[in-house]
């Protein structure tokens, strides 16, 4: 069992979605949704605490992998999160990504928290800080209109430079 208290939140994003907690839960955990809003990656997740978790790219390679830390549908999902698709990031300590889903009036508040167990430099957080708003906006658009947003993105240069510096 991992010690959640060691992880400090570094990035916290909140989005309001006109939907239901159950639909948001389904969108977070089913590949037919994730491929639409998560840069094409399909989620594979074992629906239980301790279960395996993978985001797989369209070419079959692993984008992200980890384990389920909390599986409480439709309120809270937490997974350890290791970025595998960038070779320079494979050896970094996993972070903890959690989604909290709460009814807020006739809308639903979805909170994404990225927490780290080490003193991660800001430049390394820039990847998530560029990616998450696009992912969450696209998820919202998918649930509200049936269409995701078409967003193309490259890893930020400052993150790649910081990774290169870590190697040295």
């Amino acid at each position, binding site marked *: 069992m991992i010690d959640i208290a060691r992880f*400090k*939140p*570094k990035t*916290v994003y909140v*989005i309001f979605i006109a939907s239901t907690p159950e639909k948001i839960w389904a969108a977070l955990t089913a590949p037919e949704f994730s491929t639409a809003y998560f840069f094409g990656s399909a989620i594979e997740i074992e629906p239980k605490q301790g279960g395996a978790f993978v985001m797989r790219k369209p070419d079959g390679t692993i984008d992200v992998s980890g384990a389920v830390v909390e599986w409480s549908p439709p309120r809270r999902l937490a997974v350890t999160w290791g970025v595998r698709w960038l070779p320079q990031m494979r050896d970094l300590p996993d972070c903890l990504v959690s989604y909290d889903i709460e009814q807020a009036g006739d809308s639903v508040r979805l909170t994404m928290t990225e927490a780290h167990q080490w003193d991660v430099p800001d430049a390394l957080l820039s990847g998530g800080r560029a990616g998450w*708003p696009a992912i969450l*906006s696209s998820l919202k658009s998918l649930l509200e209109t049936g269409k995701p947003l078409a967003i193309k993105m490259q890893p930020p240069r400052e993150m790649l430079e910081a990774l290169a510096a870590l190697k040295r």
Partner: protein
Amino acid sequence: MDAVFKALADSSRRELLDRLRAENGQTLGELCERLATSGIGMSRQAVSKHLAILEEANLVATVKRGREKLHYLNPVPIHEIAERWIGKFEEARLQALSALKKNLEKRHE
């Protein structure tokens, strides 16, 4: 969206967002201390009020950790505004213009 523009229409609140951008996850006390250190006069009550308005507009997200309340910049509503008026085709051109502006301004410094 009205709440976002109203929240942004105040230089003190934009200053607070800049502070969180530079260092995410600060407590009210840390924000006040650092503002005072850099000679910006804002009372604790004023900072607290501005943070509440920013949180109401969903530009700031908070996390309770033990007895502390940590504040995080939430750029998602700004991203939604950008998505609404800046299409994916314009983005590359706008980035090029913004890089050009930065370079030209640097040369004049």
